[in-house]
């Protein structure tokens, strides 16, 4: 499905509608260049699940965890492989303990840097922009 947004609030609205369909165990790949709204999208999803602390970019930390209080769901895992230079850097992160677990929803930014060294995606979301208008394609 294709969505068009003009600002952060609209991107968060699309994310909320998407978050509504999540049941746990999903692994969502987010594709798109710097400044396209990937982290804003995760912020919208986290807010839908009642996480009210700031959702910060995980580019440096690689993994952020947002604990949520919904029956059967424990956390949103916000992963960012931006700083990963070689797929062999993935295994020391020990992500397999949590990614794909039924109580966890995982959003992964820059999944292309992992080259198959991570859990397969259940959803792929593409972020692009033309003339200040953002396009979000959910597959």
């Amino acid at each position: 499905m294709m969505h068009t947004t003009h600002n952060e609030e609209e991107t968060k609205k699309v994310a909320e509608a998407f978050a509504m369909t999540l049941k746990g165990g999903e692994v969502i790949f987010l594709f798109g260049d710097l400044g396209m709204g990937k982290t804003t999208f995760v912020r919208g999803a986290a807010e839908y699940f009642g996480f009210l602390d700031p959702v910060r970019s995980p580019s440096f930390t690689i993994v952020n965890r947002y604990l949520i209080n919904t029956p059967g769901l424990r956390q949103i895992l916000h992963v960012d492989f931006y700083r990963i230079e070689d797929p062999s850097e993935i295994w020391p992160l020990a992500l397999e303990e949590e990614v794909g677990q039924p109580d966890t929803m995982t959003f992964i930014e820059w999944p292309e840097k992992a080259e198959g060294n991570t859990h397969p995606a259940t959803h792929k979301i593409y972020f692009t922009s033309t003339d200040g208008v953002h396009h979000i394609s959910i597959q």
Partner: protein
Amino acid sequence: MRILAIETSCDETAVAVVSMVNGVFAIEKSILSSQAKIHAQYGGVVPEVAAREHAAWIFPLMTEAGIPHDGAGIDAVAVTAGPGLVPALRIGVELGKTLAWAWKKPLVAVNHLEGHIYSVWLNTDHPPSFPALSLLVSGGHTELILMKDHGQYELLGMTRDDAAGEAFDKVAKLLGLPYPGGPEISRAALEGDATAIKFPRPMLDSGDLDFSFSGLKTAVRVYLEKEESVSVSDISASFQQAVVDTFVSKTLQAIEKTKPASVILSGGVSANRVLRASLESSIQLLDGSITFHAPDLSLTGDNAVMIAVAGLMKASRAEYVDPLTLVADPNMRLA
């Protein structure tokens, strides 16, 4: 007292031995994986992929630093317990626990941010007096913290999205400059006009002490898309000025609010000379009685020396933890 400190919270594996005599710190040993000349394992060249393999690094570094196997001469062990990356933190925390238990020495758990703040207590005759306002800026952190006394912190504000160092790295990437981007942008900025492009100064009138750098990054991207011919130097200088102006403005707002006796700038981005100079002169202009403190350039990035100093201060207050129960905390807070 002599303390062994271990830091593995992010990319850097670091070990240090620091002693404190009559309140004066002496760095006896300090070693970083990014600088170490340990050839055996990788045949002379350290591949980028090994950067986060703390388990492979930590014992060669301990050996290189000459840490005695029986802990002779070491009075306590300090380890970074958080915040950071769990699998990375765990390596240091488990080693610290094991050594403290085996050597029967007390163990101190240090917050990584506290370590950065204490980096300004080294190599100075005039350490900060309290209350101290601390601006901590690095790849992963952008925080304004009020330090009322040793070990007493209050979080005043932080970034709501990207950290400042991350903004430097990502703008460098947009400009085609290599990683890490901070030094590259500073270098390019020397040749540029800081007033050439009007980038936003985010959150200046937000009424709180929070930061936001994601929009500034996007502003650079949009500018690059729109303009046909661009000057990397002018963009670098204008972007850097936007970041510096934001830090100066928010720090002055925090000074008005908290009336500190001193201001501490620390973290990897504190190596930025324009930021250092602008912040110091603005504070002087506002109130000449407030002292300004920034770490030696060698101590701005992650290191174990700063963890040792914070650990010695905690040890002097007997703030020890049980080596059997300490757990790495990726979201560890200062206050």
